[in-house]
């Protein structure tokens, strides 16, 4: 189990993604606090797919870098895309009446964070966390 792809389209899938991410984070060897950070971040990004793009995919895999183990999670959708990424990454910015902390929060909780978005064709968010 070093790579898994999950199709997401409703709120039960958020729980499923969390469970699989937890299993992989435990297997890689992350401690309790980092597990909580990773799962919380992924919960936010998966919900963003469902709320803002209605469906998409989550790819979870183990990665290595100069002897370090880590986890990489890609959240991809073919939704409306994000017009202004910089704005969407501001604390409190929301187009859905949320708290507007999902994306910035996920960025703070992970070590690496990258968003690519094209209006009209979709959004991909890639996050990584490395073992200390």
């Amino acid at each position, binding site marked *: 189990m070093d790579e898994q792809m999950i199709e997401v389209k409703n709120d039960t899938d*958020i729980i499923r993604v969390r469970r699989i991410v937890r299993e992989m984070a435990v297997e890689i060897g992350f401690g309790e*606090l980092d597990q909580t950070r990773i*799962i*919380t971040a992924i*919960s936010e990004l998966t919900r963003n797919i469902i709320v803002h793009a209605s469906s998409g995919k989550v790819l979870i895999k183990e990665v290595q870098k100069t002897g370090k183990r880590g986890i990489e999670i890609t959240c991809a959708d073919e939704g409306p895309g994000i017009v202004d990424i910089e704005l969407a990454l501001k*604390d409190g910015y929301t187009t859905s009446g*949320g708290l507007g902390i*999902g994306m*910035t*929060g996920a960025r703070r909780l992970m070590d690496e964070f990258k968003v690519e978005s094209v209006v009209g064709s979709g959004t991909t968010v890639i996050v990584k966390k490395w073992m200390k």
Partner: protein
Amino acid sequence: MIIPILKIGDVLIVTLQSELTDREVEELSHDILDKINKVGAEGVIIDITALKVVDSFMARSLNSIASAATLLGSEVVVVGIQPAVALTLVELGLRVSWGVKTALNLEKGLEILKKERA
């Protein structure tokens, strides 16, 4: 999933046992407010000791339950937030938007409710 809402005196006690879907959280919110109204509960304890993850949706829902309960004349205390969950919520950026009373555990939560009514 049916989450039991226990009534002890004037207080309702809700213990979350496992991760809930967004829909289950919404149903639970409604059930709690309904029961406050029906039994005239003056306080509600929501025990989240078993939750290993609280994301912004769950946090927002707890806030909404507490605000709506206040409008009904009842007070909500959330107890049992795990240390890793607390730190993660702060890092997530919740500090600005959390307005719910909290206590370390059930016993301390009940004490808070008792004091409020004294």
